[in-house]
């Protein structure tokens, strides 16, 4: 019997009676890490909190059992749950900044659960345990550090504190809910390393919730792919990655950009249905390339496939042979003699007294996609914003088609306002919630081309068509659209200006991977048809490989390195770039056959790298620490 056993778990919304999660069954062995993979709304966090016998507000566990060792958590009395939480099973949240109490010192927060479970009687004993757990999560244990408040720590340190809080009562099971999602790649690599040591050292059973398949490839022994609240595929990580059996798994894998390989990001058509609109039968059928009429008749059972895992697909026998697409594409050769459309020279920018950017010079060539990468705080967004004139204090020159631009966007010539289009990071903030999509897209048409509202309508329809949205979207409001659809609207709104340059500020970071793939392919299309030049700001190194011709790396407001994508990612000349590349989790190590992989050193800590898959393989040997980022001053 497994340590964790979840049987037939069904969680539903109390008000509508719609299932969020239907009949999910799985187990986790002692010392095993199970990755729970799925897109937003698939029910993965619901399963994660159900492991602690909890549901979010408005939902209830309708049926099923959750058992850890001898203890039942579902169904469980409040008293049993209180005893089990923290001591038997502990939870590490996605956003540590929100999870930590801002007005309690962290020492107090770490020892709280020791007090709650009456594990230590004396203060000295508590102090010892706190010191020990802080050492395990690689935080300093001195009094000055314990007396700090959460806001005085970096994001990585906050997450370490959350891990320490989860680990202090020595639970047997750890539930990690996207613990590294908001963090930079090098911080993520260090946190994963710490978690790996903790998990293997203590022999914990781990449920790791994530949407990042590249991370999964590096940490999990088993994978459960979730779609619309049901298990689509479940099995050993090695077999799921090498021979994905469910069409959805294959789609997901094809959509993930990989830093090691430039490939066409595969697009899964359609969107995941919310709980109240899930179709009968296989919920994936409407989006599935292999769907048959039978697919919508009944919910497919999980069946074993030859490669060892189980998949819920009626065509599983045939579909395993189909290789997943997402072919590699060669990098385009440099077109000689291309003119530069945007030149930045000696740019410096300030926010108040703090200088954010120092001596930035680069140029954007006609028709190219230039990626601007760097970790949070590197100044990449400030750079993009100062190009469009949203940073009031800047010096240096920004030249658009040879013409120098003033500092403030208000003084920009009309042509610059039109040809230079900025697309914001969050489509949830960049669209006016109280204006219809048609009115939003129509605004620049009326403004720049002086058309009446009625004449603009035709262009609005045309723009919607170009971003592959149906015309009736024009009458909808942003809250009736998904994140990906909103971002398409934002792109359409830029396209109607007939731009020459798009500045894309992390435009896919708020989106799921399959949605990201669709947006990226849309941009590639527009680049091919319109000859647009794109400055793509991102922190996702994998994405850079798939979309960019050239890359600029930034750190602490300075340019670190510039180069052609392949050359720069394969052989970075600067230590900072190298650490960025090395810390990015690689997917292809898991999906490619073993013999083509670069041999890697076995990790002595995990002891299960004989196959190169299964377990926490982000070992210390691969990590070139960047001390300034990780343990820096708060």
């Amino acid at each position, binding site marked *: 019997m497994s340590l964790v056993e979840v049987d037939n778990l069904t969680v539903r919304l109390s*008000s509508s009676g719609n299932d969020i999660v239907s009949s999910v069954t799985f187990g986790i062995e002692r010392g095993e890490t199970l990755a729970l993979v799925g897109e937003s709304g698939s029910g993965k966090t619901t399963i994660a909190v159900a492991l602690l016998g909890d549901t979010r507000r408005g939902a209830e566990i309708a049926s099923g059992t959750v058992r850890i060792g001898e203890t039942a958590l579902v169904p469980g009395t409040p008293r049993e749950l209180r005893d089990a939480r923290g001591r038997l099973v502990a939870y590490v949240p996605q956003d540590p900044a929100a999870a930590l109490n801002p007005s309690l010192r962290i020492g107090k927060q770490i020892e709280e659960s020791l007090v709650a479970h009456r594990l230590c009687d004396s203060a000295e004993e508590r102090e010892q345990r706190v010191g020990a757990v802080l050492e395990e999560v690689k935080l300093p244990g001195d009094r000055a550090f314990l007396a700090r408040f959460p806001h005085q720590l970096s994001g990585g340190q906050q997450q370490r504190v959350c891990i320490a809080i989860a680990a202090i009562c020595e639970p047997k099971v750890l539930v990690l809910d996207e613990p590294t999602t908001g963090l930079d790649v090098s911080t993520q690599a260090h946190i994963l390393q710490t978690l790996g040591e903790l998990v293997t050292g203590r022999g914990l059973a781990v449920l790791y919730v994530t949407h990042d398949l590249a991370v999964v490839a590096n940490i999990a022994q088993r994978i459960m792919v979730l779609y619309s609240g049901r298990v689509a595929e479940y099995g050993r990580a090695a077999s799921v990655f090498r021979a994905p059996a469910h069409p959805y798994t294959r789609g997901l894998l094809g959509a993930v950009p990989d830093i090691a390989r430039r490939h*066409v990001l*595969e*697009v899964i*058509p*359609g*969107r995941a*249905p*919310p709980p109240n*609109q899930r179709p009968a039968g296989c919920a994936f059928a*409407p989006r599935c390339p292999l769907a048959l009429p039978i697919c919508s008749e009944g919910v497919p059972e999980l069946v074993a496939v030859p490669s060892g895992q189980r998949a819920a697909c009626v065509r599983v026998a045939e579909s395993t042979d189909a290789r997943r697409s997402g072919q590699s594409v060669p990098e385009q050769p440099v077109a000689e003699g291309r003119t530069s459309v945007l030149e930045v020279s000696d740019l410096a920018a300030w926010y108040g007294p703090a200088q954010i950017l120092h001596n930035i010079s680069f140029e954007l060539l006609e028709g190219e996609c230039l990626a601007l990468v760097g970790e949070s705080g590197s100044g990449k967004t400030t750079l993009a914003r100062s190009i*469009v*004139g*949203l940073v009031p204090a800047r010096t240096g020159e920004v030249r658009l088609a040879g013409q120098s631009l003033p500092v403030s*966007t*208000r003084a*920009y010539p*009309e042509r610059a*306002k*039109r040809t230079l289009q*900025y697309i*914001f990071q*969050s489509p949830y*903030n*960049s*669209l*006016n*919630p*109280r*204006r*219809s999509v048609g*009115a*939003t897209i129509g*605004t*620049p048409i009326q*403004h*720049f081309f002086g058309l009446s509202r009625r004449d603009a309508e035709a262009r609005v329809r045309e723009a919607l068509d170009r971003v*592959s*949205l*149906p015309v*009736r*979207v024009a*009458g*909808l*409001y942003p809250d*009736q*659209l*998904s994140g*990906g*659809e909103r971002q*398409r609207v934002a792109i359409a*709104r830029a396209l109607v*200006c007939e731009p020459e340059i798009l500045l894309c500020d992390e435009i896919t970071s708020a989106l799921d991977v399959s949605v990201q793939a*669709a947006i990226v*392919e*849309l941009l*590639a*299309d527009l680049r*091919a048809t319109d000859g647009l030049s794109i400055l793509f700001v991102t922190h996702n190194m994998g994405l850079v490989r798939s979309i960019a011709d050239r890359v600029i790396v930034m750190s602490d407001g300075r340019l670190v390195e510039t180069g052609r994508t392949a050359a720069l990612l394969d052989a970075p000349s600067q230590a900072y770039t190298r650490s960025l590349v090395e810390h990015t989790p690689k997917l292809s190590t898991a999906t490619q056959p073993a013999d083509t992989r670069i041999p890697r050193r076995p990790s002595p800590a995990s002891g299960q790298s004989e196959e190169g898959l299964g377990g926490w393989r982000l070992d210390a040997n691969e990590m070139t620490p960047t001390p300034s980022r990780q343990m820096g001053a708060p």
Partner: protein
Amino acid sequence: MEAGVFTPELAPSTEVASRPVWMQLLLRSLHQRHMQIGLTLTLLMVAVALFGPLFAPHSATSFVGIPFSGPSAKAPLGTDYLGDDVLSRVLNGGRTVVGLSFAATAFGVLLGVVVGLIAGYSRSFVDDALMGLSDVVLSFPQIVLVLVFVSILGPKLWLIVVVVGLSHSPRVARLTRSVTLELSKREFVEWAELLGIRRRRIFVQEILPNLVTPLLVETGLRLTWSIGLIAALSFLGFGIQAPHADWGLMINENRSGLTQNVWAVMAPILCIAMFTVGTNLMTEGLTRTVTGIDATGDVI
């Protein structure tokens, strides 16, 4: 390419999809019990004020009996201090109260919104100046402020509208400013600025639609206050002058005869009460809809 064939399956549109959000809100609030009762009372009193004179059995100033005589067949609510018919005076006396309070509210909200928008968006000394000025207005109790102006310049109806409106505007301006301040940092406003759209258009297109919901609630509240203020002014003799009929004025005129004909005082009081309670209930219904508490207790 793949993206070309991408056809997103959108959520099935609901029947109110293309209506503006504030109208959806109003329609939804109609299911609210508070809103239903409030709207009925308010409409009833507005109807009385507008069409009452058509149904009045006598003129508002014709002598029908001994002063302060009780209800009779000729005068169903008895007579007032001059022997005029109370019912006819009540039916004639609503126009000033109802009309002036709507006008004063509209003026106050309009003024407050303009001041609040400019202050919230300006990010400069203009903000401090406008808010300082509105704090000065705010520091006087509303009734005192209005009395000062009216007693200096005399009881003119337009003056009452302007001064009552002015006394409302700081509260509306404060609300507008705080919402505008938050909105002006949002990316969709930044986007409009990047396009070079003029400030006035940004106000109208990007910011105002987001203000409608909080403003609807605030307007309801201001309307309730206006009614009370204007009736009080009238009671104090600064409103419309006798022999014209007016609810506030009637209370004052007839209070000496309270023991002889209670209706001469009670009828106008009831009218004013029903009107304020009605507008207040409407506001309550709106608030509940906005904050997502439905009549059924369901969170929307």
